[in-house]
């Protein structure tokens, strides 16, 4: 999934440039309308997908032979959940409930979805934000070192690091990190760790694959910015390579990188699913994995809407942030002679 981000970056930038032309308030209104459309469509697609799946949460839970329920008992339970009512009725009911802020009840966990989400969100938010932060730092370090590297071979080696990072299966990395750092070297416990200790290895696991596309985009952008004449001008002023990199190239190269944040979001979620499963963290990712396994429709529906919401908000934020960071997108009037 890593490489998608890299390639999409260019696409997003060009889209933004195109959007720049529109009038701000109308543009904002349009964007919000689109955001609602995306939310609705994500909800509907996931509803249809869930409906089409064989079996359902009730069956999966109560047909479990360990519960020892008879066919009749299962049928009674099904009736009490009203899962066999017509699909349009269920759709209308679910969307109505969602609009009213009621996410329903998790069949598998036996608690309201809202409380499940409340219980699982903090861990994922912590993991994802720290993971993203570390990924950004890693990417920055790789990109900056490789552009400062004095030797071609070192530069080549550093630039192939992202490819390597992309090539490692996340779950494998997680398990290996546990084996090495927790079990062999005994540096960090994975069982019963402190509130911050427990995040160290998962954050690394999550950050490595996320950092790869970021680093690739950043390396490419730095290379590209480095060839721009203003860099030569800055050097001609007597600025050192580091000065130029830090004060001139960095911001210019970071701008297009920002736009892949929205795309990386999906990877963050996917990474969180795997990471949380490997490390037994109690987050949305792990919840998603379990909910898919047990087809806990209400939970999945809520997760999809939640992540679609996060997606549109992140993208909107990126779009709005862009003019703040790039003065060229700020003013609408052109050059005056």
């Amino acid at each position, binding site marked *: 999934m890593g490489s998608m981000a890299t390639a999409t970056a260019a696409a997003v930038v060009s889209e933004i440039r195109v959007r720049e032309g529109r009038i701000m308030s109308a543009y904002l209104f349009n964007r919000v309308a689109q955001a609602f459309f995306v939310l609705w469509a994500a909800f509907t697609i996931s509803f249809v997908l869930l409906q089409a799946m064989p079996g359902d949460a009730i069956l999966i839970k109560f047909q479990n032979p360990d519960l020892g329920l008879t066919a009749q008992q299962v049928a009674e339970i099904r009736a009490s959940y009203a899962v066999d009512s017509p699909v349009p009725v269920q759709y209308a009911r679910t969307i109505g409930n969602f609009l009213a802020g009621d996410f329903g009840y998790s069949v598998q966990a036996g608690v309201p979805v809202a409380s499940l989400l409340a219980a699982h969100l903090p861990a994922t938010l912590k993991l994802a934000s720290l993971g993203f932060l570390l990924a950004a730092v890693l990417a920055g370090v790789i990109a900056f070192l490789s552009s400062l590297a004095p030797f071609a071979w070192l530069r080549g080696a550093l630039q192939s690091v992202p490819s390597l990072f992309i090539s490692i299966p996340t779950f494998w990395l997680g398990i290996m990190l546990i084996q090495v750092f927790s079990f062999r070297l005994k540096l960090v416990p994975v069982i019963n760790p402190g509130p911050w200790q427990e995040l160290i290895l998962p954050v690394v696991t999550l950050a490595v694959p996320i950092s790869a596309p970021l680093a690739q985009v950043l390396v490419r952008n730095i290379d590209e910015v480095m060839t721009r004449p203003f860099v*030569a001008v800055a050097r*001609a002023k007597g600025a050192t390579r580091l000065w130029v990199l830090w004060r001139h190239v960095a911001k210019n190269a970071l701008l297009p990188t920002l736009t892949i944040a929205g795309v990386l979001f999906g990877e963050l979620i996917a990474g969180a699913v795997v990471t949380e499963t490997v490390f037994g963290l109690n987050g949305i990712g792990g919840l998603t994995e379990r909910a898919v396994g047990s087809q806990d429709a209400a939970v999945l529906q809520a997760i999809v809407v939640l992540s679609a919401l996060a997606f549109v908000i992140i993208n909107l934020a990126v779009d709005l942030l862009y003019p703040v960071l790039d*003065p060229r997108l700020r003013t609408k009037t052109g050059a*005056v002679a």
Partner: protein
Amino acid sequence: MTVIPGPFPPVLEVENLCIAYADSSGERRAVHDVSFRINPGEVVALVGESGSGKTTTAQSIIGLLAANGRVERGSIRLNGTDIARWTDRQLDTVRGARISLVPQDPGSSLNPVKTIGSQLGEIFRIHGALRSDEIEARVISLLARVGLSEPALRARQYPHELSGGMRQRVLIAIAIALKPQLIIADEPTSALDVTVQKRILDLIDELRAEYGAAVLLVTHDLGVAADRADRIVVLKGGRIQEQGATGAVLAAPRSPYTRQLLADAPSFTAPLRLAAVRPSIASAPDDIVVVEGLVREFVREGGGSALRAVDDLSFRVRRGTTHAVVGESGSGKTTTIRSIVGFDRPTAGRIAIDGIDVSGLTGEGLRQFRRKVQLVYQNPYGSLDPRQNVLQIVTEPLTNFLGLRRSDREEKARTILARVGLPEEALGRRPLALSGGQRQRVAIARALVLDPQLVVLDEAVSALDVSVQARILDLLDELQSDLGLTYLFVSHDLAVVRQISDTVSVLKDGRLVDGGTVSDVFENPRSDYTRELINAIPGRKRRAAA
């Protein structure tokens, strides 16, 4: 104009400089045994066409060769100290402080996300030349010195809020900020309009005099060199062809290459023809292009009144002649020709080509119309599909219009390609494997293959080296007389226009400010603007001398 040899040593002394670039096939030498010197306060021009090694030489002096380039041997002595093999760390103390650079393209030479003030102030910070509380005042006074209005406001603005000329002024301010002994001006004006170009060159001259700096002027334009330099160094293929005092070189060029350059430079050459010799002009009026009351407005972003790119423009072009549309950037000339070829729809007014009303055309009618009118673009790198070979490019219009057999199409394409002077072996190549001149020949062949009546040339030679430009102009002239073509020639370069056109329209801010035959307009300009344009043509010194 000769420099009196003073007691001071030369600011710069380049001796036997050899520079090579490494690429996948090994090292390739780009500069061969180049030697020259610059005395204090002197302007030396490095003149040459693309690939002559002039920019490489300039880059090596300030220590900014591309990563794959290296000085093989030779020395670069700055005030007697050889800096050719200095490390970056050593060079950093010299760059900006003792040698500075005025770059080629003001559009991209300023960091778009930093304010003008911070980019100018930066040079004091880098060299620790001023206390930080002094910097702002100094920045503003420098901006004022290079002729920017409202310097305090400019300091807070971003590069995109300034025009090209203003940006170049900022870059000059950066270059003189620390009063360096040597300013390298690398094609400082080639991206600017002629009138702006003159003002910028004047500014450099003025500041040089004021600060006592020596200038190494890198240029492809012999006219600029002739006007501004004390001495000229002519480079070709990385080797010095000749050097000497400007007047001497221009008056009596010793190398054949210099002679060729002089012959090709439009600013020094006489018009190819005079209106009088053109038979068609004398015959009955037969206007193939009629533009009447053309208006094109663009809706401004964020509301407000519409922007008038073309404002009530009228002109006519007679069949078989060349009409030039002249103007600087923003004058509306590109908008005009896009309307003429049917890529843009005017807001008001009438365009008739060979009796056909262009603005009424859509769909198939428009497509058929294109057989009559062909456009040759400014940039031959962008207007040819990089994935097609030459033969495919030239046969494509035939495929679109004529139901010919493949072999017939190719036959026709071969003929026209031979006609524009492309060798047989180039037919299978892709544009990337061609030189700029060859590409423009391909573009012309593509335009001609359908036997159009009107060829619109949008700055078709301005991206080319003078010698190539001269060959293409020769070709165009030849084709016109052979095929009876009509040209609509769009250019900002008055020298070229004078050379090739019969009639001319001068545009400013979307309006026609002058028009008529070339000789009328050049000899009796009716507007101040036309006069200014004519005065700005570089090489006046030489012309005056001649």
